């Protein structure tokens, strides 16, 4: 989905609030959220792709105003309700207030019918795929050309794995793009590398 989570290249955000040795957590409840979603993954209640997708499904206004760990909390609660571990009513009764969840999921998809093995140096293009469900292709590379610089082991295919759809594991390719190709006349010169699933790529002859 072309969701609000897909931040790469969006304009208007200001200075990074950088401090050296910045903490990962600012409050104790944040440590607890992080532990609990990780526990749910270890217990097999949901997988990381489902977890990420439930964050992406948050209403955009909520996503942008929630802190990082509130997004984490919302995903965790959404999936616990969707998996039947607890009802929304029970959560709201225990929390003594309303408990906003993410929006329902749209359909996912399985691997592309035609997939090709690439090797470093191959020129590739990112397919013009528009999908309503989960996808790990940042919008800024869609339709763009780049060069393969590396291949990963096979991973679960996220477009399927986030939706409990059967699919084959497939490798990702680290693809090198030029920032000037991604945002012509509107980027600092740099090489931008993205881990791109095999199903998202086609060869440039």
């Amino acid at each position, binding site marked *: 989905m072309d969701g609000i*989570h897909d*931040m*790469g290249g969006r*304009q208007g*955000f200001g*200075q*990074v*609030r*950088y*401090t*050296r*040795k*910045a*903490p*990962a*957590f600012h409050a104790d409840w944040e*440590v*607890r959220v*992080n*532990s*609990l979603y*990780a*526990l749910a993954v270890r217990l097999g209640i949901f*997988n*990381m792709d489902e977890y*990420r997708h439930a*964050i992406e499904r948050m209403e955009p206004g909520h996503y942008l105003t929630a802190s990082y*760990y509130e997004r984490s*909390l919302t995903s965790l609660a959404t999936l*616990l309700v969707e998996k039947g571990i*607890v009802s929304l009513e029970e*959560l709201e009764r*225990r*929390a*003594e*207030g*309303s*408990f*906003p969840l993410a929006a329902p999921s749209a359909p996912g998809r399985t691997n592309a019918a035609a997939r090709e093995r690439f090797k470093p140096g191959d020129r590739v293009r990112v397919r013009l795929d528009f999908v309503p469900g989960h996808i*790990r*292709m*940042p919008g*800024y590379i869609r339709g763009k050309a780049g060069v393969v610089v*590396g291949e*990963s*082991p096979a*991973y679960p295919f*996220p477009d399927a794995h986030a939706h409990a759809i059967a699919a084959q594991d497939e490798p990702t390719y*680290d693809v090198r793009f030029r*920032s000037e190709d*991604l*945002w012509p006349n509107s980027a*600092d*010169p*740099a*090489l*931008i*590398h993205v*881990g*791109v699933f095999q199903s998202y790529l086609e060869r440039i002859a």
Partner: protein
Amino acid sequence: MTMPDKDIVVKRTASVERRLDAIQSVFDERGMKATQTVEELRHLGEEEWGRNGARVVARAWVDPAFRARLLANGKDAVAELGASMPKHHRHLVVLENTPKVQNVICCTLCSCTAFTIIGLPPDWYKDLAYRSRVVRESRTVLKGMGLDLPAEVEIRVWDTTADTRYMVLPEQPPATLGWPEEKLASIVSRDSLIGVERL
């Protein structure tokens, strides 16, 4: 003026702490050992994980054979030092800085990091400003964070969009040549492993 037939009940959104308490109590009541898990993360996240990356870098600086193995297969090489990665982190790519190349890692879609190696990601890494800007305005963003790179240094950004994890291998400062490994590890910062700081 007529009154509405029914009272409209507007429930206030519960605070994040109350929402979390609700979930944690559900976990505990169902025997899922939530409280114990929280204590484990406190220890691992704040103490052990943060040191792994520095130990790896220090070893790579003093041991060329290890450095070669680290660049060829990061996950196997860090395991030699007893550093493990979660099951879904199946691949670790180590990115070598040179006088002419600065590597920087990010996750524009969420917050993915090799957290058992680098440590849990700092707040700014997960912020919308870093995620949106570092791919498009890399040099400007780095400068704003205190890393003003000479024009001849090429910037290579790595967006962690899959289950491959990345770690930057910073250059060893010349003044530290010959130092013992443990002392070298003490100068390797988390931010240098992300690539927003040079040592």
